[in-house]
């Protein structure tokens, strides 16, 4: 009896000591918060294969991730061990000191990462980027051929092409952008204003400076574009515009590059639309700079967690960024990896970056300006107020918010 028990116990002990999870981890809890699109889902799915034998991996991928990340990571211990962020959503985490520097983890486990994937703030690695994204132009080559117009490179040319399509009776509303009131509309304004080359704020301060001729030019172009857009444009977010494109109802659109994979696949659309969809650089406004901002998406590790969890999270996510994931999901994103092969789905983002687009400003108070613009520009686009008044409203709303948040006195 005693021998039997000893044999059983030692047998179990032997099994246990030899057991490691697939990624060389011995324990840790991983909980990932992120946005919900194809590339992130692929990464997290691969990361979850590291689970087992003391390592648990969970995730929450939702479009509302920016709304919950600050509160979730402020808790101690943090609710999530990693937040997948972009250049604008990392800023609130940096402001509140909610993420930890990754220098030691990169030195230990990040040998395969490229130098341009490491996001350093003040010399410390705060995030590991895995994809680049930008809004750019999508056009239907068959329709442009039908009306005999060259693919547009500036927004004035876009307007001319839209007018030609309308005059030929093909489509009444050939253009669309993500102009839903709120974050989307703010983003379109930021992109258009960036193309003018003017600064958003007085250099070195948090004082806003957009009520000038650059701001007026940007707003007037947005308004002209909306004349060629369906009157419901104030409800169009990324999903709505992608649906419009795949349904063949628009011929020109400014969409996120990350939508390219979904549009060019063989689901949700017709052969005619997919075969003639071309992705190209974002149009310029009145200079050479494309009217777009460059975004990166990457992962961060929370500060308020144990070192064991941090290491497990880092290892799991680096596994998720491996070459096999990139190759299997090549068209889901513009991956920042040598295993990535540029294809038609990434041509737009690459062209926009090459044309000299600037990255989205990672200023701590940029989010406040973005929110103010997204809320106050609606009346201008509906024709109820002038451009100067709209810009003054945006500046006033921003200044109130900045004073309340302590960026202005």
């Amino acid at each position: 009896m005693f021998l039997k028990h000893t044999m059983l116990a030692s047998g179990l002990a032997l099994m246990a000591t030899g057991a490691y999870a697939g990624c060389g981890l011995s324990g840790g809890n991983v909980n990932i918060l992120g946005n919900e699109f194809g590339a992130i889902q692929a990464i997290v799915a691969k990361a979850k294969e590291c689970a087992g034998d003391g390592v648990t991996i969970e995730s929450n991928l939702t479009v509302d991730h920016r709304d919950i990340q600050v509160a979730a990571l402020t808790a101690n211990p943090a609710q999530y061990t990693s937040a997948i962020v972009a250049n604008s959503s990392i800023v609130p985490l940096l402001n509140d000191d909610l993420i930890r520097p990754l220098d030691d983890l990169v030195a230990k486990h990040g040998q395969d990462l490229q130098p341009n994937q490491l996001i350093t703030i003040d010399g410390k690695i705060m995030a590991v980027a895995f994809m680049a994204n930008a809004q750019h132009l999508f056009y239907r080559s068959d329709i442009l051929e039908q009306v005999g117009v060259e693919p547009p490179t500036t927004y004035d040319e876009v307007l001319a092409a839209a007018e030609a399509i309308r005059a030929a009776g093909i489509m009444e509303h050939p253009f669309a952008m993500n102009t839903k009131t709120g974050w989307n509309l703010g983003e379109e304004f930021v992109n258009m204003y960036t193309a003018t080359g003017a600064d958003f704020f007085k250099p070195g301060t948090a004082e806003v400076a957009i009520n000038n001729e650059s701001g007026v030019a940007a707003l007037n172009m947005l308004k002209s574009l909306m004349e060629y857009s369906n009157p419901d444009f104030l409800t169009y977010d990324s999903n709505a515009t992608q649906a419009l494109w795949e349904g063949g109802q628009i011929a020109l659109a400014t969409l996120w590059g990350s939508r390219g994979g979904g549009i060019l696949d063989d689901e949700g659309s017709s052969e005619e639309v997919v075969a003639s969809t071309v992705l190209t650089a974002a149009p310029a406004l009145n200079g050479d700079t494309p009217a777009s901002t460059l975004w990166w998406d990457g992962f961060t590790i929370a500060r308020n967690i144990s070192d064991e969890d941090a290491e497990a999270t880092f290892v799991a996510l680096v596994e998720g960024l491996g070459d096999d994931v990139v190759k299997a999901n090549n068209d889901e994103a513009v991956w920042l990896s040598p295993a990535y092969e540029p294809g038609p789905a990434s041509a737009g983002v690459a062209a926009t970056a090459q044309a000299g687009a600037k990255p989205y400003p990672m200023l701590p108070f940029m989010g406040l300006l973005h929110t103010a613009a997204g809320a106050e520009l609606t009346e201008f686009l509906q024709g109820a107020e002038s451009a100067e008044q709209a810009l003054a409203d945006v500046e006033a709303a921003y200044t109130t918010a900045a004073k309340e948040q302590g960026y202005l006195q």
Partner: protein
Amino acid sequence: MKHKTFFWFILPSLAAMIVFIAMPLVSVVVQSLHVEHEQVMVVTENCGPFGCEEQTSVDAEATAKLREEKPLGRFNGLGTYFDRGHLATAEVATAWSERASLGDFFKRLYNLPLYKAIAFTLTYTFVVTPLVIILGLAIALGVNRVTPALKGPTIFVSLLPMIVTPLIGSLILFWMIDAQGIIGKSLQFLFDDPELSLKASPTLTWITLIIYGIWHSAPFAFVVFYAGLQSVSHETLEAARIDGASRWQQVRYVVIPHLMPLAIFIALIQLMDNFRVFEPVIGFSAEANAPSLSYIIYNDLKGDVIRFNSAAATSLLTVVGVIILLAPVLVRTWRDFNRKVV
């Protein structure tokens, strides 16, 4: 009942209300009187996939220290209540002194976020509440006359709009009124206007939201009135009929006075609920045309930077608004109560 017995009876509810309603309210009041600390900023070099650049960022350590010393932030008194995002006293004064006409003054007022929300919220409240009562009464009178065999199914169908979750109901209606949805297309056909869009014009969006609000709340009024109808005195009705009163006169002189206390009850509940209208604004993506007070509170609390202080101030202004709305009814109830005791 003796006061002491009454006190012990309500103690559990009172304790729960203090913990879950009163204390959070005090916390919200305190938050609305503060603003964030001044952010300490430094210029650092940030590098990423697109190169390196010098940028301003927040000095996390210094700011964290400030927060540890004074977690609530800087005391701002009533400053937040009077800033542009709320009562906007300075902007209203400028608008008044610079006005070209009364219409121009209201147009400038409408430009301010809180007043735009108040305009929609008040319109919604004062249009939906009476129409809900009238429609509820009409449905109740109608259902009362249906043959007993069909009464059950009819009541079930009449209750459905209230049972459907507001968010789902408004989303479904949002898809139906789309220019390509069944209602949107039908309206375009009826009015022979291919450009007609219910979502684009502020006026039409308000009307859509109000119609949705009436449709959703009418069953509540119907249920209350229907219960009240069962207790209408048959003798009085009989007497009225003998005296030669028509159907409408019977309703007007017997049924409605009997149901008046119920109507006041429904008005009270509806005023409170409609003033806090929120889910239809989300479901119809109507924040551009028809923001409500609850929506602007929600808007402050979501996004990258959560503005607790601003949301707290707007919440309290909403509470003050509800108190002002209900004051007449509460005063009348208090007077009735005092009279009865005497």
